[in-house]
């Protein structure tokens, strides 16, 4: 089972929820940080790192001795990453999405593969849990290509489904967030009961609904703000799987890099119930699928 923890609004508690779930999961698990722009999960799980590799994207390198300046490459490129003007060909590596179109279409076979660094992928273990993260190179604009490579390694680590997976997703509802949750079995949306929390939660719900995956909500800082989030969840039939109370002791524990299930047995109980709720959601889905088959 792959569980994504996403949010819409940033700072609602995705990493807190991911870290807490990882520690109480009770079955073989891999925790993955796909918020490659600002990965934080390692700050709470303190994994022992076992390996890392640099991730690259393939970009064009033009052999000018073969180039006839026909312009087929720049006509095809949708990202303004290669340009032919008169007797000059220029590449703009930072614009390249790595589609390989220019290399395939060049009639002179004048374009070969170079590479641009995307960032780093590293892995290890946190207690009995496997751990995997991507870290985008500062200055690199595109996170989805790095996320795809992290997920490729995840497939090996999850050992054909014998280990569950918890994905700590990036905030927002645009392409990086959708990329993070697209392969999961269950999506958990973490929000807070404030106007900002509600608005971004609605956007996230709209963005993820077309994926057709079971979703559940976690309301963090319950007690601040207002109760509109509960009305929204009720309207949409979205189950609230957990509520984490607004409590300074929790905020301070988080601020010290602690996993909040350590604060009290009540908090730990909330996450154990959340875990059960997630499993129920996933089972409901697989029994539905079995019924369709």
């Amino acid at each position, binding site marked *: 089972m792959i569980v994504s923890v996403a949010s819409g609004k940033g*700072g609602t508690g995705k990493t807190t929820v991911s870290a807490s779930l990882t520690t109480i999961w009770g079955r073989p698990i891999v925790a993955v940080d796909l918020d490659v722009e*600002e990965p934080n999960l390692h700050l709470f799980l303190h994994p022992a790192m076992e390996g890392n590799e640099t991730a690259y994207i393939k970009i064009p390198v033009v052999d000018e001795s073969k180039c006839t300046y026909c312009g087929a490459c720049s006509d095809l490129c949708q990202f303004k990453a290669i340009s032919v003007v008169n007797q000059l060909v220029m590449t703009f590596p930072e614009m390249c999405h790595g589609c*390989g179109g220019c290399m395939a279409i060049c009639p002179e076979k004048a374009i070969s593969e170079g590479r641009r660094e995307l960032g780093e992928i590293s892995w290890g273990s946190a207690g009995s849990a496997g751990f995997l993260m991507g870290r985008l190179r500062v200055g690199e604009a595109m996170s989805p290509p790095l996320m795809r490579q992290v997920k490729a390694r995840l497939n090996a680590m999850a050992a054909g489904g014998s280990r569950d997976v918890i994905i700590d997703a990036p905030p927002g509802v645009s*392409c990086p967030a959708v990329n993070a949750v*697209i392969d999961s079995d269950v999506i958990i949306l973490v929000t807070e009961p404030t106007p900002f929390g509600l608005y971004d939660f609605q956007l996230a719900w709209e963005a993820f609904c077309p994926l057709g995956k079971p979703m559940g909500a976690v309301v963090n800082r319950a007690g601040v703000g207002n109760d509109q989030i509960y009305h929204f969840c009720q309207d949409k039939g979205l189950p609230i799987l957990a509520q984490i109370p607004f409590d300074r002791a929790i905020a301070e524990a988080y601020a010290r890099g602690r996993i909040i299930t350590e604060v009290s047995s009540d908090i730990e109980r909330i996450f154990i119930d959340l875990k059960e709720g997630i499993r129920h959601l996933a089972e409901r889905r697989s029994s539905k699928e079995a019924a369709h088959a």
Partner: protein
Amino acid sequence: MREVVIISGKGGTGKTSLTGAFAHLAAKKVICDLDVDAPDLHLLLRPAHQREEEFWSGYEAKIDPELCERCGTCAAMCRFGAIHENDSGFRVDPLRCEGCKVCVAFCPADAIEFPQKHCGNWYVSSTRMGPMVHAQLFPGEENSGRLVMVLKQQARELAESRDLDLVLCDGAPGIGCPVISSLSGTDLAVAVTEPTPSGRHDLERVADLCRHFKVGFAVIINKCDLNPEESKRIEAFCRDKDYPVLASLPHDRIVTEAMVQTLVVTELPESEFSRELGRAWEQIEALLGR
């Protein structure tokens, strides 16, 4: 004209609440929400739309099943895993399609269309704090960086035409595409952080990003009392790198109270929080040379 962007690295540190307050404190400005993915500033400023424009950007491949000969060239060449075959033929998954046109160019049957995408809308609005330029990218869409560039251009033109000398921008979390776009041509980035391991970690990355793009950088520590030792570490980091710390704000429920009332913090009765914010804004003005 000067331009300042409020960013954070980590989400949820208080960017938008503080930008709203600065919009209240600043004179002669255009307000601009560059978090086009999950924008929230409009929830405080309640803009009245005066102009609405569609944002079209990028393309999406669509296979015509009538013309498709099921050769599989498209799926073999797609580097994004966006094309799969099912019982009814090959199909493009719009959520994975990068819009690169490779499948269109190499389809021997010319069976793939390539329509442009309507990715969102943008607005020029009036608010009680002044004119505002903002947008909403449709959920799940891409090209947020390009939309950010459109908004910045509009905000600058609006400021010029109305004889205003400041563009005040609310930015997005992270260090990727929309944040990089929001830094282009900006005089100053103000990062709002919090004294948590995540807050400090993400602040350091966003500081590196601003250094990389040679944008001026200053810091506000929000919720500073949550972990005073971590606040000190952030201050030491800033001292070491020569980044001014403009304010240290306590963790105060009035921020959420203001939000619930759709007001900004400085519109509530005066508090230590709002006084500290006022001092921060004066320093921002000084850094901008206003």
